[in-house]
């Protein structure tokens, strides 16, 4: 991605500076070339992003297949031992809390739900092991950006695990991830009128901002 140095040889010879174009022309050509480079970079970014997302998905599918061989209780226990709330596990799998409680008691789980459960654990393990997130249960529960009520649990629940990986690996910014999650996030998930605070009695309370 080097700027074309032949630029210096364009234009006529003036004075003692042989090969240099007039400064206006040089600036204009440079601007065109940089514009062209940016376009190429943008296309390249799109291509690599698509390829990167495919590798995420393939890797996740592989992990998911392996994990789905395990006992359901074992999968649930792993997530619970990491510190995930049963409610969040249920949301990420896409079932109700009572349904999850039934599986804990050994009741039958459909093949589809078994795969969904394995996928949740696969996502968590990938974030923990490949992206070096210490204490993944906490990380998944913390808002992506302070003051915005969206967490990685919400991303998984919305079936957008790619965004989780981009966030955990710093391949996208919190704002970028939020834009890709829901373009209306600033209206939906941010309260510009009220805020919470810890009152004198130690209880979290609500007050107008400012």
């Amino acid at each position, binding site marked *: 991605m080097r700027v074309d140095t032949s630029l210096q040889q364009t234009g006529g010879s003036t004075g003692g500076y042989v090969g240099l174009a007039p400064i206006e022309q040089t600036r204009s050509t440079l601007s065109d070339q940089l514009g062209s480079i940016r376009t190429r970079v943008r296309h390249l970014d799109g291509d690599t992003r698509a390829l990167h997302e495919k590798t995420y998905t393939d890797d996740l599918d592989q992990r998911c297949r392996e994990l789905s061989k395990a006992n359901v209780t074992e999968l649930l226990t792993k997530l*619970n*031992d*990491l*510190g*995930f*709330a*049963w*409610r969040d596990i249920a949301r990420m799998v896409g079932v*109700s*809390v*009572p349904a999850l*409680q039934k599986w804990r008691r050994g009741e039958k789980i459909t093949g589809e739900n078994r795969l969904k459960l394995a996928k949740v654990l696969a996502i968590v393990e990938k974030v923990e092991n490949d992206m070096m997130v210490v*204490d993944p*249960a*906490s990380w998944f*529960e*913390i*808002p992506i950006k302070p003051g915005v*009520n969206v*967490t990685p649990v919400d991303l998984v629940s919305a079936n957008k695990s790619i965004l989780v990986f981009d966030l955990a690996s710093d391949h996208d910014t919190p704002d970028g991830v939020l834009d890709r999650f829901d373009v209306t996030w600033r*209206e*939906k*998930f*941010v*309260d510009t*009128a*009220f*805020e*919470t605070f*810890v009152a004198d009695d*130690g*209880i*979290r*309370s*609500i007050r107008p901002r400012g």
Partner: protein
Amino acid sequence: MSDVVLETPSPRDIMYMSRGDEVDAFRPLFTGDIYAKRNAGDDFEQIVIVLQHPCALRVRGVELVREILAARISVSGKPRSDWADESIRVMPVPDLFQDGAHYAADFVDVVLIPSSELVSKWERVAILSELGVNLLTQRWVHHNSRVVIKTVTYNEQTAGPFHEADLEAEWCMMLDGQEPQGESAEFDFHEWIRRPWSPGVPMSRQSMLDDPQKRASVRRAMNDEVRARRSVETSRDSFKDS
């Protein structure tokens, strides 16, 4: 502030955590719980929804206040697709019994029910999800004050008590077995959750539940505690048997 409106759950079922026989008997009474009372003919003669904020339901940690403020629920038409268009006096309670019939809680028909009676003589027929509780609080506060606060803000405020209720239900289920065995597990839980996190960290486990960064640590600590207590119980039982 003018563009903030009363919100609508989508899909509407996400306002419930559980209904009917899926209601967790171990879960402590909480804001938004729906109780029904049967008449002699075994039909529900009264249905109510608990209105009080979680922080106003108990004294000294575990004891329920003497009387619980609730709103009566009755049969209603299908809720509008946008709940901002509903009467501000009601909280829609769609498909409460999962039979297609819709209900609504009436904020101008409120009752005080002795807590001892509510938990012993009424039947809990539904528990609201975190979003459901926040929607109820949003509408109840708006009805009383004309102020609309986004559910995301209520969510930040009620998350700690909601997670505590989750943990209490889990603790009691793991230590009581199939059915609640009175109040001892509940008292034990409250004693444990109010203890400081560690000798060097005076913050209680309960306060730590307010902070999303610390909740997972409290859950892991509780898992360890429950396992230790169950192991002691198992050893005691085998000692008795021998």
